[in-house]
């Protein structure tokens, strides 16, 4: 019997460990991919995943299927953990974040564009309405967990410009996705 991640997560909220194991099997590969994309090192991604599922176990009863999918709920926890770990890493090695950002320039520039072309739905349509450079900023920040400073180094623009661009992009995205009243 194949149960949806939503059903599984609701059962996990009741303390069901069998459902928890099933949920892990169904969702861990995707979350591993998400964490790896941000952290780039398997041992760090593993740390993020471990933290993610411990939290998912503790907070599963708060999951509301009316707001979104179980996968999105888990992905939000996972990204948060990965971003926290990435920030700690960057602080541990002073200046490492700049190096990381430089490394990324060649490796990921092209697939960032591919991803945009491949994504579908309302978010993709709204991202399409942003100017190219601002769209890149949002997508790469999200997928790679980059700070404003890292984005500034990557796109060779002042940090304040990154900040302004992110602000405008977020407000335009929200307007586009939620409608003018939102």
């Amino acid at each position, binding site marked *: 019997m194949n149960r949806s991640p939503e059903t599984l997560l609701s059962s996990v909220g009741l303390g069901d460990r069998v459902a928890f194991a099933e949920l892990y099997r169904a969702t*861990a590969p995707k979350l591993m991919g998400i964490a*790896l994309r941000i952290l780039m090192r398997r041992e760090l991604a593993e740390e993020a995943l471990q933290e993610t599922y411990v939290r998912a176990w503790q907070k599963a009863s708060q999951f509301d299927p009316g*707001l979104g999918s179980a996968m999105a709920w888990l992905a939000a926890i996972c990204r948060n953990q990965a971003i926290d770990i990435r920030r700690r890493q960057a602080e541990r090695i002073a200046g490492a974040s700049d190096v990381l950002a430089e490394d990324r320039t060649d490796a990921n520039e092209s697939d960032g564009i591919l991803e945009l072309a491949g994504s579908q739905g309302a978010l993709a349509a709204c991202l399409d309405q942003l100017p190219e450079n601002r769209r890149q900023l949002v997508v790469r920040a999200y997928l790679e967990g980059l700070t404003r400073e890292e984005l500034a180094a990557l796109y060779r623009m002042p940090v304040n410009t990154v900040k302004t661009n992110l602000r405008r992009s977020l407000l335009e995205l929200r307007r586009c996705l939620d409608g003018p009243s939102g």
Partner: protein
Amino acid sequence: MARPVSPEDREVLAGEYVLGTLDSGERAEAERLRDSDPDFANAIAAWGYRLDPLNASVASATPPEGLFQRIEQRLGETAGSPTPSSPTIIKLERRLRHWRAATLAMTAHAASLIGFILAAPREPIAHRFVAAVQQGDQQPVFVVAVDTAKGIIAVRPVAARAPESGRDYELWAVGGGRPRPQSLGLITIRDANLPVARLESDKAATIADTVFAVSLEPRGGSPTGQPTGPVLWTGKLVPVD
């Protein structure tokens, strides 16, 4: 960093928190705000769902061998409780597993009880469900009947004994979109087919995902609004028409 003042500032802070572009200090500030302000917490959750479609482009990767075992070990260390406030819910776990096996092969005995409880209504009814509330695959103790058309939840005692002196049985609805167990009130073993609660209309759609649980509580019911005593019996709804 200055505390965000305008609604737009707050919206951008929530959005940047989810994007991951804040530095450590700003992240900590956003988390403080999230923990103290439910509206801001909702704004963060909303951005999480808005931007989630971007994850569709990320390729899956094989998690490390043995990671799940390490996670389970961590859960053992944290006392195994899914929610700190409701340690009794863990006891539902085993019964829920029992239930799964039991429901599929529901006994003729339970089926006859269902006929009994639903004999009364005459007019055609859109959605009726019953749950045999029991321990494991033992004989049902209560039968819960739900009529989503009328919005009524009724309970019939079947083989229940009176609770020990100074205690009451309390009925709970768990899951089906409820963030926490919801009390449906106290149940007695004397009143047959007693409608115990109204079903909120917004819960009718997810009623099939609801688990009913009976816990033993101090006289008058749980003092906390959440199950405090042992969960004695559970049951899940099955449709009858």
